[in-house]
């Protein structure tokens, strides 16, 4: 039986010239989604930050599979986090968290 809500998990790498934290990153993501697609678009993303690792500067985000393109475009358009110049590079996209972690491990090797 097909699942009602299909989701996508995104692994992103964050580069920032200054210091940043999860709240700063989350704020930058939402600001960019709102700027590009407005409140209606943002509501369709069902976006959430699942994991955030400051050491590796990586984050795992979850979104609706229908809004994947929209979220990817928003992440790529981030230029600032907490007023410091920054960029977010998409590493991997997967349908389940387990598969994403497996792919990430394989890529790290």
């Amino acid at each position, binding site marked *: 039986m097909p699942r009602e809500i299909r989701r996508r998990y995104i692994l992103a790498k964050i580069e920032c010239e200054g210091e940043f934290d999860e709240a700063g990153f989350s704020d930058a993501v939402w600001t960019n989604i709102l700027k590009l697609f407005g409140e209606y678009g943002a509501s369709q993303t069902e976006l959430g930050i699942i994991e955030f690792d400051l050491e590796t500067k990586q984050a795992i985000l979850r979104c609706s599979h229908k809004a994947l*393109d*929209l979220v990817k*475009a928003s*992440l*790529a*358009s981030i*230029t600032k986090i907490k007023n410091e110049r920054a*960029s977010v590079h*998409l590493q991997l996209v997967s349908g389940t968290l387990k598969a994403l972690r497996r792919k990430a491990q394989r890529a790290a090797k």
Partner: protein
Amino acid sequence: MKFYVDLHLCPRLEDHAQTRMLIKKSAELGYKALGISFPLTIDQKEIEMVKGFCEDVGVDLVTRIDLKTRTSAEMLKNLRSLRRRFEVVAVQCHSKTIARQAAKDRRVDLLSFPFAGMGGCFFDNAAAELASKALSFLEIDMAPLLYLSGLQRSHFLTALRKEVSTARRFKVPIVLSSGVSDVSLLRKAEDYASLAYLFNLDLHEARQAFSDNPRVIIERNRRKLSRDYVAPGIYIVKRGKDCRVR
């Protein structure tokens, strides 16, 4: 892994550290060849130096010139003198006349339409038809999508959507480039391809515009600039005394 090319980097060449950093970062982001825009008066020594920076990080340098002329006559004069000095020739079309002239000239590889606020979109049907016959490519710089905001970005996206739709209608291939002079605006080709969704270019087309399309231009021009090239379709395949036809 795909062979990604960024055909438009604009470093401040007098700042060697910045140029080197831009090249290094591009290599880290997975680009295999980089088109660097040189000024008209550049000397060979400086080109060799930039080539050295590229070789250090294992990327291929593609020399490029951007023609920003006011009149068609000036553009033609520049094309005559510069075509054989650079591997890629791009024309920045600031007017309809320049756009038409550049579109029908086979020596021009890339047609670029800098964003000038609201108003004219110079890549119209006529220019697209001429470009498709002359095998020119439409170039779209991605940097303005990152540094513009608000209403300006919205107008820029409108212009891009029009250009992409016209290019599709007349089968003019598209090349996506970064067009950056600042390291912080550099992104992976895949990230730029995600951004292309904003102007109706799907992921497959966007990837092609970052890999296959620029590669076609580079290979075509390098063949033409080689000393074995005689005329379209005619190449020297062997030199020396043992070349007699039996």
